[in-house]
């Protein structure tokens, strides 16, 4: 009897020890899994960061003009060979996808972490060249006086909104913020209807055009400046938020009178 009791106590102690061991082992596994997950996320961030850095270096070593959109810093910079040419403050950034009869058509193509190529203005900037036929040469000379050209503002009227269309159905829509409020009610309605008509046409009938569209709101002066001076065949790269190092790019303090930058995902008011 006594021997039997001792056996039961021993068995109970053994079971308790095993249970404790299992609990301890379980806790240990959780503790080990947490750092592994951290390392994995760190690796993912580093991989993306190095990938984007490599792409920036490739762009800087090329001869094409390129735009670098930094949603975290809230700006878009026109660059050439690593040099910052012009920087514009982004007041709002949205991602648009085509929708037909209330059914959104998500597009599987990759658009982040890649270089968008061959961006062209739509509507294009019209260049009217003046052709001058020189007078036949004489000893006295007859100086041909070409007309004084208009200012850039007169020469290149900026549409209320415009696109930069890239290869593979990627595009950006530049929208000057607050210009619509200055326009009359009829002008706003007309602009809204025209935009809606074109959007509906593109979404319904042209699958390859604007499959992914980034809508960028700029202040009107910047939007006009970008339209007037954007070089042809421009490229675009979107930086990631976890990329700490950008090429000689640091956010400027907001100028007096200029609206403060909103967060990159800030909504853009509709007209």
């Amino acid at each position, binding site marked *: 009897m006594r021997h039997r009791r001792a056996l039961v106590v021993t068995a109970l102690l053994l079971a308790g020890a095993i249970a404790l061991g299992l609990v301890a082992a379980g806790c240990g596994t959780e503790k080990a899994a947490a750092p592994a997950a951290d390392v994995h996320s760190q690796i993912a961030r580093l991989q993306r960061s190095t990938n984007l850095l490599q792409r920036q270096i490739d762009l800087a070593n090329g001869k094409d003009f390129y735009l670098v959109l930094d949603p975290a810093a809230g700006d878009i910079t026109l660059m050439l060979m690593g040099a910052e040419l012009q920087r514009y403050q982004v007041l709002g950034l949205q991602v648009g996808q085509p929708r037909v009869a209330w059914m959104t058509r998500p597009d599987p193509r990759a658009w982040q972490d890649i270089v968008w190529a061959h961006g062209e203005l739509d509507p294009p900037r019209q260049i009217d*060249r003046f052709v001058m036929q020189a007078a036949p040469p004489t000893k006295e000379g007859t100086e041909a006086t070409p007309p004084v050209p208009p200012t850039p503002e007169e020469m290149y009227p900026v549409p209320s909104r415009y696109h930069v269309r890239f290869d593979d159905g990627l595009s950006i829509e530049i929208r000057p913020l607050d210009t619509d409020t200055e326009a009359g009610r009829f002008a706003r309605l007309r602009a809204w209807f025209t935009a809606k008509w074109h959007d509906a046409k593109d979404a319904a009938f042209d699958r390859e055009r604007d499959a992914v569209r980034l809508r960028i709101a700029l202040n009107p002066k910047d939007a006009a400046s970008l339209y007037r001076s954007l070089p042809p065949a421009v490229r675009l790269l979107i930086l990631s938020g976890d990329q700490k190092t950008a090429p000689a790019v640091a956010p400027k303090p907001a100028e007096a009178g200029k609206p403060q930058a909103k967060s990159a995902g800030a909504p853009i008011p509709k007209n």
Partner: protein
Amino acid sequence: MDPSPNSPTGRDVTPDTGGPEPPRAAPPGAAPPTAASAPLPVTAPAHVHRLGRLPLDRRTAAVAMSAVAVLLVVGIAWAGTGYHYDPYIEKPAAVTGNVPTTDRELKQFAARLDRRSRELTAKLKATAPRGVYIVIDQTQNRIYLKRDEETLLDARCSAGSGLVLKETGGKNRQWVFDTPRGRFDVLTLLRNPVWAKPDWAFVEDGQPIPKNPADRLESGTLGEYALYFGDGFMIHGTLYERLLGRAVSHGCIRVGRDDLRKVWANARIGMRIYIY
């Protein structure tokens, strides 16, 4: 439809055939209708409803209703066609490629990536121009003097007019006065530059092209200083400061006297010029 005396109700009840009522012939010998005995206005048959002043039969009503319904459906569909916008959200980073499985190897892998990231960052910074550089916006006719993120000068200039000049007689040559885009380096710095007028300058002025190179030289036209950056292009002064801000040059960049002095103060051989 006069009341019939034979009808017990005093009304002529005729079966409704659905078609239009045939006109009745007047009895023989009857007098022509006068104003007093003129027939009463014809009332609409039972199957025709009035919608305001417009008589509308059932078929027309059905077609109209269908059209309205179709238009409504198309309108609702059109309203929901276009682009749907969401705030920009960065897609979460995901591990790509083969990644080691053990903790130790993972940490080593991450360290290698970190090192690579630092190397690339340094490499990228090396692509940026060092010191002061010139940026020219040729469509808006602006010249900037920059150093890192600092803008030292923002001034008006005049870039190429884009004009096409055609020679009459001679070789029938043609010149396009565009400013080139791209990156250039300052090759020569010229104080009190003398302009060696090219052929087009004589063609434009309607003068014969001189055979003696000395006859091409003209001083004072290019201002106090000139920064030559290749292919006959320069940043120089101008006699026509009132035209600054407009595209009037033959491809060179014309700058006002005071601004040119600031550019000259920072200029050096090999200085980068970016024109867009």
